[in-house]
């Protein structure tokens, strides 16, 4: 981080900094996710703090610069958690610093539990942000059912600071489970593995993680102790045709398995570019075959395919036309510039996105060029 980082202390100072900008700003949370356009940095780290936590209403409100660790600590104290299990990008990207809750939302970061509990955007129930004109805008609120006006909450999640700089976020949170266990199947092909994951996700046993990589196919069950034992047992029986699953029922070891999947740690210390492909789960194995990657990890029941390929590989060219999209997550700046970080959108959608950016940031000062 260069010395010239603007660090406003509140929403008013942030608005002023944006109004004063004479060129593009690089919007920063904790700076751990490697995103951002070139230009002077504007950090929200100074706009921090959990402002409300109502455990009986499953609600938490925090300012955007709040370290994710602080949000999680506040929730743990009440036996709750963020449902969407956000990935920590630091190991994979080799970044340092403290991830912020604003950064999580700006990139709509969601982990293995996305298949059951939804993405970050599904738990997000309210936002405050400052747009490119310096106007402070509020949308949604702190209640979990709200259809009053347009849902700009969803629009802001994943907009990577290009429509506005987030200042405050409200979440629906969930009770943390008493325990968890992981069922493990060994030696399945990609196709067999995704079939097993689909079969498991089609049972009523509330599978909250379904992944496959490095020859292991894993399924997670969370809940009350007796319930986890019962459902893991039933699931094992239901999956008998795929092999005899072993159960990891030590919750600490189970958690470690899912942390590694969430953070794609198997790719972290290996050279090459990392891509993330989102497809219909049953298309996952065919995509992996076409990609011919050095290493492949399937999450989300097969629908999220992580691929490790030699540096500079044009993965989109290898994959050709497919229903879904490929995002370049780790590569050098030249590769990002040459191949594009995000999948090209169909023309009508790209036109709408450009139109929205022009309305919310008419001077083009917020992460210009980052999303198109």
């Amino acid at each position: 981080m260069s010395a010239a980082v603007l660090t406003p202390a509140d929403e008013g100072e942030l608005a002023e900094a944006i109004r004063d900008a004479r060129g593009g700003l690089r919007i920063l949370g904790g700076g751990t996710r490697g995103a951002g356009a070139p230009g002077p940095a504007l950090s929200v780290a100074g706009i921090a703090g959990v402002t409300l936590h109502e455990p009986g209403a499953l609600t938490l409100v925090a300012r955007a610069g709040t370290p994710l660790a602080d949000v999680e600590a506040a929730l743990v104290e009440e036996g709750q958690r963020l449902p969407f299990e956000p990935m920590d990008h630091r190991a994979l990207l080799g970044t340092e610093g403290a991830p912020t809750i604003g950064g999580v939302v700006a990139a709509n970061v969601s982990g293995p539990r996305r298949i059951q509990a939804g993405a970050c955007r599904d738990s997000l129930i309210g936002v405050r942000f400052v747009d490119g004109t310096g106007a402070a805008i509020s949308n949604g609120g702190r209640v979990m059912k709200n259809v009053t006006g347009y849902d700009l909450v969803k629009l802001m999640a994943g907009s990577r600071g290009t429509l506005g700089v987030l200042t405050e976020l409200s979440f629906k949170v969930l009770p943390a489970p008493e325990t968890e266990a992981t069922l493990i199947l060994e030696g399945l092909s990609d196709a067999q593995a995704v079939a097993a994951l689909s079969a498991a996700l089609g049972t009523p046993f509330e599978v909250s993680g379904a992944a496959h990589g490095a020859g292991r196919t894993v399924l997670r069950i969370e809940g009350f102790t007796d319930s986890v034992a019962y459902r893991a047992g039933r699931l094992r029986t239901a999956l008998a045709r795929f092999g005899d699953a072993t159960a990891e029922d030590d919750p600490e070891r189970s958690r470690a398995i899912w942390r590694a999947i969430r953070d794609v740690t198997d790719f972290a210390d290996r050279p090459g570019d990392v891509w993330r492909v989102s497809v219909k789960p049953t298309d996952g194995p065919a995509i992996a075959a076409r990609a011919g990657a050095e290493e492949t990890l399937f999450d989300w029941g097969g629908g999220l395919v992580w691929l490790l390929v030699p540096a500079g590989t044009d993965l989109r060219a290898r994959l050709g036309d497919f229903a879904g999209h490929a995002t370049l997550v780790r590569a050098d700046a030249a590769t990002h510039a040459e191949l594009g970080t995000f999948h090209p959108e169909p023309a009508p959608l790209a036109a709408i996105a450009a139109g929205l950016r022009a309305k919310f940031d008419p001077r083009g000062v917020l992460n210009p060029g980052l999303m198109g």
Partner: protein
Amino acid sequence: MEMPAPNPSVLSRRAQIAARLREVLPADAVIDDPVETRAYECDALTAYRCPPLAVVLPASTQEVAAVLRLCNREGVPVVPRGAGTSLAGGSMPTQDSVVLGVARMNAVLETDYDNRTIRVQAGRTNLSLSDAVAEGGFFYAPDPSSQLACAIAGNIAMNAGGAHCLKYGVTTNNLLGATVVLMDGTVTEIGGAHLDAPGLDLLGVICGSEGQLGVVTEAVLRILPAPEGARPVLMAFDSSEVAGACVADIIRAGVLPVAIEFMDGPCIRACEDFAHAGYPDCAALLIVEVEGSEAEIDMQLGLIKQVARGHSPQEVRESASPEESAAIWKGRKSAFGAMGRLGDYICLDGTIPVSALPQVLGRIGALSQEYGLRVANVFHAGDGNMHPLILFDANTPGELERAEALGAEILRACVAAGGCLTGEHGVGVEKRDLMVDQFSAADMEAQMRVKDVFDPRWLLNPAKVFPLAQSQARRAAG
């Protein structure tokens, strides 16, 4: 209800516009006989009516595109309509508008159990989705109380909820992809059977935009495996405050019930008179339902009863059989019918933080006294989505207006308590003018900018959602 004055230029071209519509649609898909268009003069907000210029019933995405392209060129407003069950006037026409009904587009296009999705045309009714996937052991989660009649198109337009949202979320959480036709006739595909779309979350902002950004003709929706079983417990309390506190404690205890329903004294008595469900005579009643295997249900209900005992319930009645479960739900499910028997009513839809339940219920009681109108409360307590029912007599002059004024006061109380005007019904025309109580001018400006991008001429359902004074300049410029 104030509506914008119809565009005289459009009205004067009525016959010509109908003729042009017939050029792009089969003859039986265009209705302009004033007797027949009467059937489309209102939705479930029946107090307000206005026959449209014409009604079109396209049968395909291409026909929808042709209609929109034509109306965009001719400067004719279009009011999209699902099944017409909106309680907020979301599909109420204006005199100069073409109502675009999607009822003929009701096919299930693909059922995919391996990927847990269903692709349907948007005129398909909500409940028929669950019926379509029941044989595979699946269901579609959002369950608005009109689910027998309401269409997925309207569910997406209003981001419909239901009783089971606490666990399964609302429409936006279960919508993966859509075919959307823009006002200029452009057909776009957003998302699909994969779990996230690239770029900005356009589907997220289209869902709940009340038909103002585009017309959804097809949708890819998430289906879920049906639970092994479900069972409710009924708990009676001697005050709404205690019942409200019990709800918060249940949630804190780490159980996630699939539904927590609340009824107050006036509602309980009306339901009892109507349905004879055998409810205890009490000030407040909770119905809490959990899911799982028999043993899992026993365990969760045990925990819930233990929490409830801390609040000295008058009675706790756990279902021991499917018959008893049905009896517990019988009164709740007949609440709206029971209220209808007492007279006319307005059903509100404000949401509040669960912690504010006792305070807001107290405020509603005081307002009810002040206005001299009875209010019964029945709602989804787990997520704070209230449904106060204001009883009035439409035949007494001035009583509807008084009931509406009381409704506005109650909704302002919801906003003041940290909540919102509408949790699942939408703003429509009904709550349009209350938007200023929840949003600043900048907040509304940001929302209207989104419409500027999708529909620059403000022709799609233009007189909804935003107060007319706020949207005036944009509508006039179109």
